[in-house]
């Protein structure tokens, strides 16, 4: 048990060092641009731009920490909150790996598998983007071909359709109520769309936890 704690503790220890160091690097980038090109930002544009963007993003990020950390595990979370694309890539990837390895998310084996899966996904993504950047001239007409556009436009439905079958077939009793609620909400409320689905994730999670707790107490699951 002590050894288990040591591994998790070390993940938090190194995760903190890495994330805070990378944070400094991220901030250095615009700061150095100012020094190198001897220019200040357009202060009015900066405040207006931040006002339009930051409050919502900050609120979403705050909620995301509470929603995603229990699902991603410690190592996976430190990596995911640096490398991004959590809901459309890292989390589905980790979920699939946990399922295939046959380990539980809340076990140490789960923690390790989730970290490996997210680290590999981050490395592969970074490499593919580097290839894309180097080959942007020949690749642009291919990837932007009108015939392929509908395929990439439907990435999320194509990804979650398959993933949903795996999980819903296993936990269908818990899944019925939240699925129905979300489908009804998204059909009837026009403001719910690609931009706001991130806000609905915690809503779905809290609702499902409530349903699951109720069913568990009543001995239904």
């Amino acid at each position, binding site marked *: 048990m002590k050894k288990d704690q040591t591994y998790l503790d070390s*993940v938090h220890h190194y995760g*903190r060092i890495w*994330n805070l160091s*990378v*944070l400094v690097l*991220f901030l250095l*980038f615009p700061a*150095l641009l*100012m020094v190198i*090109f001897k220019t200040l930002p357009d202060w009015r*544009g900066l405040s207006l*731009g931040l006002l339009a*963007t930051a409050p919502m993003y900050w609120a979403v990020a*705050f909620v995301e920490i509470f929603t995603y*950390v229990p699902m991603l*595990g*410690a190592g996976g979370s*430190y990596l995911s*909150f640096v*490398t*991004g694309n959590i809901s459309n890539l890292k989390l589905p*990837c980790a979920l699939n*790996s946990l399922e295939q*390895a046959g380990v*539980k998310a809340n076990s*140490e*084996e789960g923690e390790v*598998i989730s*970290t490996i899966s997210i*680290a590999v*996904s981050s*490395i*592969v*993504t*970074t490499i*593919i983007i580097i290839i894309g950047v180097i080959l*942007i001239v020949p690749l642009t007409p291919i990837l932007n071909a009108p015939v392929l556009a509908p*395929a990439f436009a*439907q*990435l999320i*439905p*194509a*990804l979650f*359709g398959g*993933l*949903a*079958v795996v999980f*819903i077939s*296993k936990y269908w009793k*818990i*899944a019925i109520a*939240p699925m129905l609620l979300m*489908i009804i909400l998204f*059909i009837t409320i026009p403001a719910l769309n690609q931009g706001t*689905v991130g806000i609905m*994730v915690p809503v*779905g999670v809290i609702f*499902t936890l409530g*349903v*699951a707790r109720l069913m568990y107490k009543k001995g239904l699951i």
Partner: protein
Amino acid sequence: MEFSVNHPIIFVMVGVIIAAVLAQSIFFLVRAMRRAKELGMESKTLRKTIKTAAIFTIAPAIAIVISVMTLAKDLGLALPWLRLSVIGSLSYETVAAANAVSAMGLTLGQVKSLTASQYITITWVMTLSILVGIWLMPLIGKRIQNGMINIGNKDKKWSEIFTNAMFIGMLSAFLGFVFSDFSTVFSGDWSGLIPVLVMIVSALVMAICGLLVKKIKWIYDYALPLSMILGMLSAIPITNWLS
């Protein structure tokens, strides 16, 4: 130094940051692999995890490359390369860039050239807007995890249901999202049905893989990438048909 959105020095800085993030992923990967061996996990399982994670990542990563290409038209190549390689996501970065650009009276998609000051402004807006998770995780991540461990210590069965209920909650939000344009059907526009049909195709492929797995063992490893790619491909005829 004369400014250009594709100035080599910007590429060098972006390259250094991306190399650091890559190093972090490798660091965590190596440590997790070592721990897995200590826990007595089989090398076969670990190799399979690496292989399937890599294969699964390809299609979503290509979608990210397409976003880099789109944003590069306005912002040069270096900034979208950085922003989409670290934190953020497809949808976030486009919105952040659009807000930053329009705050200076320009329109994303029609920017001909940027001054150094405009570029730096956009970079600050995109950077500061997205930076919460990266410092909040070191601050409260451990406490959230300890909370989960406590739940597990108190009631193991509930702890398992708890994590699965979270997964289901997340999945149902995205299933709901697939229906977000569905109401267009009521006014005779069938395009809102496209994501729903694509999802059904993907789900069917997964279900068929599940049935075939007894006969063709390898299909289990590739079921998710396969259902995703076939779902995406089905979007081409479905879109042509319904729009």
